[in-house]
């Protein structure tokens, strides 16, 4: 139910108009960071104030909103922002990637491929990819303007010199349409290939830094690398312990203080969906007797899917 004390989607219409203008400019110049008059939001910086403002400016009453935090629909940040928008806009919310029209995300791109018409809104802490090498904003703007991106390569050089490979595993810099170098927000580099040629519109909002940038649908996005050290997306070398997926990005969950651990899909909707149609992983059973001795767990009956919100419940059970 909409809280009548607020305008639709919290921000007033003039503010949304200002943000939409920034978004339009960002879409017109893919990868370029457009300054905008970021507002104070009723949550602390670092909780996604930029993403929330972009989402608020994009929402229409017919939208179906999904909010994910590190891939999960049921973590604090995701739950809070979802509740916030349900209260101030009254739009329908969902956990299903395919049903959503607007997806606000923190640090992940959903495993389920996006489709045309969807908007993916990223929360961005530091939009400037060159920031840690060049602290002067005047200088980084000039470098973007003049396309001087040698410095970004220095960062990758340092990685190889120190670690033997490009050790940057998240916020991996990309070149957009052969022009602007962009920070894709702290998504794992596993997700970088999904940025390119996506049928969905991708918007990036940085609240504290007052910047918005965008990737229009079907934009070419290339991860930077060296000729002799090509870009490689990485993930934990395991299958999901709950749904058995071998190709999804995994979280490592420590289950006890004796070295017990499990790997689960970071995308809860993807994992839950797979289990609903009968896929099962190493520990993906309600009867899992002892997760530290997971090898001995009897396989669950086929076709047994979790109920509503079952993923979180089951994970909790297994972890217990």
């Amino acid at each position, binding site marked *: 139910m909409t809280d009548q004390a607020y305008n639709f989607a919290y921000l007033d219409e003039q503010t949304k108009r200002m943000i939409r203008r920034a978004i339009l400019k960002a879409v017109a110049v893919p990868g370029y960071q457009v300054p905008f008059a970021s507002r104070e939001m009723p949550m602390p910086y670092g909780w996604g104030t930029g993403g929330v403002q972009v989402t608020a400016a994009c929402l229409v009453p017919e939208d179906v909103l999904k909010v994910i935090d590190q891939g999960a629909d049921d973590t604090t940040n995701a739950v809070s922002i979802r509740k916030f928008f349900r209260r101030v806009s009254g739009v329908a919310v969902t956990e299903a990637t395919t049903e959503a029209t607007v997806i606000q995300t923190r640090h992940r791109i959903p495993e389920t491929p996006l489709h045309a018409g969807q908007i993916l809104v990223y929360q961005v802490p530091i939009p400037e990819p060159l920031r840690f*090498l060049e602290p002067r904003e005047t200088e980084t703007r000039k470098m973007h303007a003049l396309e001087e991106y*040698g*410095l970004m390569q*220095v960062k990758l050089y340092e990685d190889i010199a*120190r670690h033997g490979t490009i050790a940057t595993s998240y916020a991996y810099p990309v070149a957009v349409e052969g022009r602007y170098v962009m920070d894709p927000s702290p998504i794992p580099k596993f997700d970088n290939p999904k940025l390119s040629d996506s049928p969905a519109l991708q918007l990036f909002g940085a609240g504290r830094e007052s910047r918005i940038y965008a990737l229009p649908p079907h934009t070419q996005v290339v991860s930077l690398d060296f000729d*002799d050290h090509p870009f490689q997306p990485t993930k934990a070398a395991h299958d999901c312990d709950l749904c058995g997926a071998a190709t999804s990005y995994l979280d490592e969950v420590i289950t006890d203080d004796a070295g017990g651990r499990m790997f689960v899909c970071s995308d809860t909707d993807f994992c839950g969906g797979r289990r609903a149609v009968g896929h099962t992983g190493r520990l993906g059973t309600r009867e899992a007797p002892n997760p530290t001795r997971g090898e001995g767990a009897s396989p669950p009956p086929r076709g047994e899917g979790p109920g509503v919100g079952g993923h979180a419940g089951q994970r909790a059970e297994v972890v217990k």
Partner: protein
Amino acid sequence: MTGPLLSVRGLTRTYGARIGCADVSFDLYPGEVLGIVGESGSGKSTLLSCLAGHQRPDAGAVLFRTAAGLTDTVTMAEPDRRRLARTDWAFVHQNPRDGLRMGVSAGGNVGERLMATGARHYGAIRDRATDWMGRVEIAADRIDDRPSAFSGGMQQRLQIARNLVTGPRLVFMDEPTGGLDVSVQARLLDLIRGLVRDLGLSVIIVTHDLAVVRLLAHRLMVMKSGRVVEAGLTDQVLDDPQHAYTQLLVSSILQV
């Protein structure tokens, strides 16, 4: 090649009513080392930063020989000037901390200009960096150390390597030996002299140390209060100073 590499005409830079440097004109030919001496506040550094494009002069022209002939770098578009600054020019700062990235390894520092000009092969970049570390007498096993772990002399040599790796034609040096003790200074001067001769560099070197220009410079300009008071061959100016200020400068050197 015929004609000057750099031709400066009527260069003036003022700070409000104060003069930074006024009406400076000279030609620099390929392979030539020009020393600019003078006391503190005489406008040496202002002149150098105007020449290198770090400051915009109020009047005058700085003509640099590019593929298209002599081009005024003052009125040149900024992208072109910055491209010159990372390919054909080099700037060695007095304090290596200004010229190096202290948070980046020595190899990364040397490789930065290569990467800025399009090098994208890690192995090749590292080989060039190792080669240049050797040329400036830094042990190859220090390539992954940060400059903050280096001594002052090593930092200065690293800065020189970082600047020369792209094969510039014109090097600006602002007091390259300042802040180093004499024995390190001597080695650094030796090194610079060797590099200048081997690579056929043109150099503009700003210093207040007459011994440095005596060793390095072919020609000399003496500045006072923003103006050039005397110019000529180094030995001629130092051995037979004409202007009163130059005479004072030469006679002020301590004899050990």
